[in-house]
């Protein structure tokens, strides 16, 4: 018997999101969707750098005060992952660069002043973070954390897991282009996932996914365009300026979190080092450079 496809669209974490499930029991599917959205909202409340009532906001507010937080297991694991990515990227992936990302994530289509950039650069640096599991202290006043590049991807995994725990085997969670597939359609066929073209309208590729994560990092998201020049939201913490890298990087991995981390790192490393990193990692990937040249294979 073919199952019933239930599709639910919503907005969360500033992005259009969707959940698609296939299950003969519509009530169970509805319950799974509610549980999945619950996970996304929980993580948004906990780690959003847009909200001032998040746990992350509490950490940031304590910067320079000497206050020490004992992190819960989930937050501690996120910090361990962030520390690993910081090391793997030679310091380019930096969750302490919140002041910079906030500066470049601007509603107005103007460049920040050089003095603003310098001020923000003065407030970043992993060395100002004291992280000795499970104890966290933000040593420098003005230090702002940004878990962008991890939280949305992690939320896609947790939302999918919430459905799996309720007995759903077939379904897809998509949070703003980051995808986690729980399992194939009930008839065994894979889900067809479209990857957005970073420049043209429409899709760059459609790939069949039975299971696992697919994440895309692109310079089109929240990009700033000034005098015809595009500035992505991904900022090099060393220079304080948005990176000139790929137009987009998509990676497949067992989880959306692993895929998203790899895509973000490749984006930060730039075309040459990023391609080497993706190749060494050995995960299926698809890249588009600024000239529109497509590389890799998903």
């Amino acid at each position: 018997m073919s199952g019933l496809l239930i599709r639910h669209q919503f907005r969360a974490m500033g992005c259009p999101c969707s959940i698609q499930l296939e299950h003969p029991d519509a009530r169970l599917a509805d319950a799974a969707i509610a549980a999945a959205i619950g996970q996304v909202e929980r993580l948004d409340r906990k780690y959003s750098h847009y909200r001032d009532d998040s746990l992350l906001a509490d950490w940031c507010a304590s910067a320079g005060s000497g206050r020490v937080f004992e992190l819960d297991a989930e937050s501690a694991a996120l910090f361990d992952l962030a520390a690993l990515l910081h090391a793997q990227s030679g310091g380019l992936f930096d969750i302490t660069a919140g002041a910079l990302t906030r500066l470049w994530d601007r509603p107005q289509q103007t460049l920040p002043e050089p003095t603003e950039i310098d001020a923000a650069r003065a407030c970043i640096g992993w060395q100002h973070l004291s992280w000795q599991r499970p104890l966290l202290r933000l040593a420098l006043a003005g230090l702002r954390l940004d878990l962008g590049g991890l939280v949305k991807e992690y939320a896609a995994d947790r939302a999918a897991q919430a459905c799996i725990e309720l007995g759903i085997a077939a379904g897809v969670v998509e949070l703003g282009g980051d995808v986690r597939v729980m399992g194939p359609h009930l008839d065994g066929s894979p889900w067809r996932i479209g990857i957005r073209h970073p420049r043209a309208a429409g899709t760059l590729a459609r790939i069949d996914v039975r299971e696992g994560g697919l994440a895309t990092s692109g310079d089109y998201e929240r990009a700033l365009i000034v005098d015809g020049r595009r500035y992505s939201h991904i900022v090099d913490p060393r220079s304080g300026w948005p990176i000139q890298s790929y137009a987009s990087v998509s990676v497949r991995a067992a989880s959306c979190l692993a895929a998203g981390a790899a895509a973000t790192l490749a984006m930060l490393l730039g075309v040459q080092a990023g391609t080497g990193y993706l190749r060494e990692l050995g995960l299926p990937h698809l890249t588009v450079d600024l000239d529109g040249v497509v590389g890799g294979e998903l």
Partner: protein
Amino acid sequence: MAERSSALLLQLLAATAALVGPAAASAQSDAASGTSVSYRHGDYDEDRLEPAPLDGSDRRYRVRTDQFQLNTELGDSDQLSVGLVHEAMSGSSPWFSFPDADGDALQVMSGATIRDTRHEVSAAWSRDRGDAGSIGASASYSAEDDYHAAALGLDWQRPLSAAIDLGLGASFSHDIIDPTDAAEFDRIDRAIKNTWSAFGSLTFVLDRSSQLQAGMQLTHANGYLSDPYKRYYAGDRILSDARPDQRTQGALLLRWRRAFVEQDGALHLDYRLAGDSWGVRSHTVEASWYQSLPHAFRIVPGLRWYSQGAASFYAPFSAAGTVGTYHSSDYRLAANGSVSASIDVRQRLGAWEWVIGIERLRAHDALGFGGEPDPGRVSYTQIQAGFDYHFE
């Protein structure tokens, strides 16, 4: 290079696994069905003959079936199932027809009640090859006092696109017929029948709630295809049943499935058109509704219509005594038709699922075409009950 690459990936996967677990494994283990056992008891009971037979018992066949099946997984992608069947049959069956004073056929039934048991053992293996589809193989052996059959089957399925699946299969059966009381009733001592079958199907996903399968099956049998227990009345002679030693059958199949979200149910509509080299044509239309209900109940009412035209060499008898090379008065080769209604109820209770079903089939002479109905036509009631148990 390789060492470093794996180290990079392993570091990343280890750090993410602390948050999301070994992701692929969790989804796989949930989709996996593990091991299950099932048991079914069936009772198939044919109606008494009406009008009463000219001679012999009016108590027709009754078959009680006990069936066990074990399904288990071998590794990540292989499934194995093993089945055992025990059947106990009793009753009498139509022997031949005899004309009354008006020339209408009267049934003569086999005199003694037949008692026989059948045992079958079967095994099936399948492998899910992910995007490359699936393959499977099966084998079975069935034994009765007077009939032995060994069969082998292969099937193969693969997606042609996200919306179309291709299925192909083939099977072969080698049967040995060893009739009882051969000398006393002028039956053959021993005979062999071989059957080859091939089928192909395309399944189209029409949209997310409906799919259509179109299939074709070709079957060829040769060897002894007559029924050693049936006779044929020709004037003053009672002859053995005599059918061609070759039979080629073709069938076209359409299956449509549609899920209804609001009703939490699904409609299945099937149509089968079949024809063979003996001149038998048939149409089968079947409709069933799968309804999910609270407390993990599922109820499936169904209706089936069947309509058949007679084989070219079928006749209830030859009053004048003239016979051709082939002649048979087997009611199954006559024009006949039936309507059947069924209902299945099942409920899942944790690891257990119980199931009970009943089917009532009634012969309807008006549904047959291309000939007279045979007095041996059968109506029956079938009840089946059992359970499944899923090991965690």
